[in-house]
């Protein structure tokens, strides 16, 4: 009987002829066993199009299946594969090894997140802060009835916030933020950008409520405008700009 190939089998870059190989250094840390992070090195064949995530999956398949990494969509949509690649927070599935211009690629877990194991980190703080700013439209008339009409918006009104709705909650901005590194209660650039996204939405009526939530001692005012969040955002959200625009509301320059 003919054998059907297993659907779990993955095609990785090692399956095709490879012109080059690089050294992939993977941070290994298990908080239950280890006291410190160590690095394991693997020689991985790469092509021009090989992404860092593919290289890690190659290592998992051929060398060490115990490397912990979180991923899902492989197309910069789910926000699962954030990690520090050669010192900068990036999405592993969205970073081609060829664009790093280095024969050694070091991958570490995102900074400012507690490590579960190796490259996988906990997202509790990010999601809690995200929920805290009420990331949904607040209106009195949200009940959908038979005569409900669309809530129309002009292109100009949409322009005000559309860029900020591209956030995939990958946490790279929080990982790059210097305030997040020292202030364990800081709400963070991701949540602040989302607060702006809803405050600037002409359909939303929860502006005062949301501004009150972020107007506390570990809220919006702890941002020092380092701008690193916007530099690392893979979706062009620009959280630093969102934070400054939100401040405009609080200082009375915007209404």
């Amino acid at each position, binding site marked *: 009987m003919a054998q059907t190939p297993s659907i779990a089998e993955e095609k990785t870059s090692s399956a095709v002829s490879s012109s080059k190989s690089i050294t992939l250094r993977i941070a290994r840390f298990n908080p239950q066993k280890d006291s410190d992070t160590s690095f394991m090195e693997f020689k991985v064949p790469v092509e021009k199009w090989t992404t860092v995530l593919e290289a890690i999956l190659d290592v998992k398949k051929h060398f060490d299946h115990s490397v912990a990494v979180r991923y899902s969509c492989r197309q910069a949509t789910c926000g699962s594969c954030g990690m520090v690649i050669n010192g900068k927070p990036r999405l592993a599935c969205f970073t081609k090894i060829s664009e790093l211009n280095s024969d050694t690629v070091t991958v570490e877990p995102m900074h400012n997140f507690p490590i579960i194991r190796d490259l996988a980190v906990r997202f509790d703080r990010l999601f809690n802060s995200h929920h805290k700013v009420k990331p949904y439209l607040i209106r009195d008339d949200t009940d959908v009835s038979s005569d409900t009409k669309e809530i129309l918006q002009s292109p100009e009104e949409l322009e005000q916030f559309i860029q900020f709705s591209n956030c995939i909650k990958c946490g790279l901005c929080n990982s790059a933020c210097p305030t997040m590194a*020292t*202030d364990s*209660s800081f709400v963070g650039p991701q949540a602040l950008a989302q607060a702006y996204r809803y405050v600037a939405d002409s359909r939303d009526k929860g502006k005062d409520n949301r501004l009150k939530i972020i*107007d*506390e*001692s*570990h*809220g919006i*005012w*702890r941002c020092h405008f380092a701008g690193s969040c916007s530099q690392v955002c893979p979706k062009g959200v620009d959280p630093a700009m969102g934070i400054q625009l939100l401040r405009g509301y609080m200082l009375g320059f915007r209404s």
Partner: protein
Amino acid sequence: MLRLPWYTEWLLCLVNKMRESHIMKIHYGTALAAIGLVAVHILMRLTQGFAESLEYESVIENYKFLPYAGLLEIILILLSIHGFNGLRVILLELKQGRIYEKAVSYGCVAAMIGLIAYGSRTIIMVNTGMI
């Protein structure tokens, strides 16, 4: 038990109730005002001879000239508010915790009041003839 003067308690209560945006508006406002007044202060020093400005007699003379003493007093208040709020922000970012944060906020307000009182004391002593 240590009892704070009534105005200190009133101030602490006010600080406790203030929203962070109000505090930061004061922070930015005091910085801008201080820049303007310090510029006036430096200009006045230049007109009166910079080198002797810290000599004992010249300091006493300046304190006796009330408009200038008033300017110095306002600069002292502005810089104390701005400086101690800046210190509070730095300390809040350094470490977190309910008791620690309360201690930092109250400590900074108390230190600010202390510095303003100490600076004002010199002006008052000169003008009441105690020096």
